[in-house]
């Protein structure tokens, strides 16, 4: 990503904390839109004229991975975790750990 081309302008002078705001967030926006399009195509490849179906495990794993990547992008760039203290990043990670344990814990592994 051409993220820091606009940030080197000495007239801006906002310091490092928010420099990414000047260009990077539009790249993130573009990436989010493209990943959303990919997400829509994966379960229904006919939308773009493909005549095959992806296997079910591939669909599930790739969709969850894409969702996590998009989630990370929003949190990292839009919610400014990129410029945040490690303590805030740790706080932000807590619900993910929680949901991981919860989902694995109550998932009907042995047939409910």
């Amino acid at each position, binding site marked *: 990503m051409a993220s820091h081309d606009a940030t080197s302008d000495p007239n801006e002078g906002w310091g490092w904390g*928010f420099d990414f705001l000047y260009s990077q967030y*539009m790249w993130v926006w573009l990436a989010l839109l493209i990943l959303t399009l990919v997400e829509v195509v994966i*379960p229904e490849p006919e*939308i773009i004229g493909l005549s095959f179906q992806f296997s079910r495990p591939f669909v*599930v794993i790739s969709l969850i991975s894409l969702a996590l990547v998009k989630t990370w992008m929003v949190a990292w760039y839009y919610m400014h975790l990129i410029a945040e203290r490690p303590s*805030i990043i740790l706080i932000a990670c807590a619900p*993910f750990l929680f949901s991981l344990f919860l*989902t694995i814990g109550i998932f009907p592994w042995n047939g409910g």
Partner: protein
Amino acid sequence: MASQNASLAADSMIGEESLGVTNGKLGMWAFLVMDAMTFAGLLAGYARLRWTPGSDWPLPIEAFGFTGIQLTALNTFILICSSVSMVHVLAEQMRGNMERAKKWMLFTIFGGLVFLGIQGFEWTHLIMDMWPYLFDEGYEAAYSVNFAATFFILTGFHGMHVSVGVIYNVIIYLGLRSGKITKDDTSVVEIAGLYWHFVDLVWILVFTFVYLI
């Protein structure tokens, strides 16, 4: 680190600090963590109900159809655009360009309203046409009623968050318009942005799990 010093300099204009961030921001993060865990509970319950053997769960793609998924994909697109326009608000405010910040704020609010409008349209269609058995015993359920129940709980709980976010954003807009929020009050807008981006973030997960998988 230089990055932390800069964000601290902007933050120190309002509120006391603890853990190196303003209390306002820490409070919002604490709320968001709580909120995220609520969503995690709903999603985990959804996973259990759906993948219990014999749950008679339809593939969402087949249940909602092409148009249903594409309409929601458009809604996702609108929410992401609304999220990036919120980033614009903060960026313009930090540049001191309050007129532009106000315009972007209006755009953000508009995006949230369009999202809610499309969701309202979708709900109306689902309740009236697709799942009539929810309110009328004369109809027989086509598949697991849990499919509709978890759908309404997850999208409804998220839609409530969008509604609150729109109200929150309107308040920020009024503050910007009346001049109560100046170019120095970046923390106020940043904290409002945290909430709005979180709503976007949760929708990415809900959209994936409820509509696509």
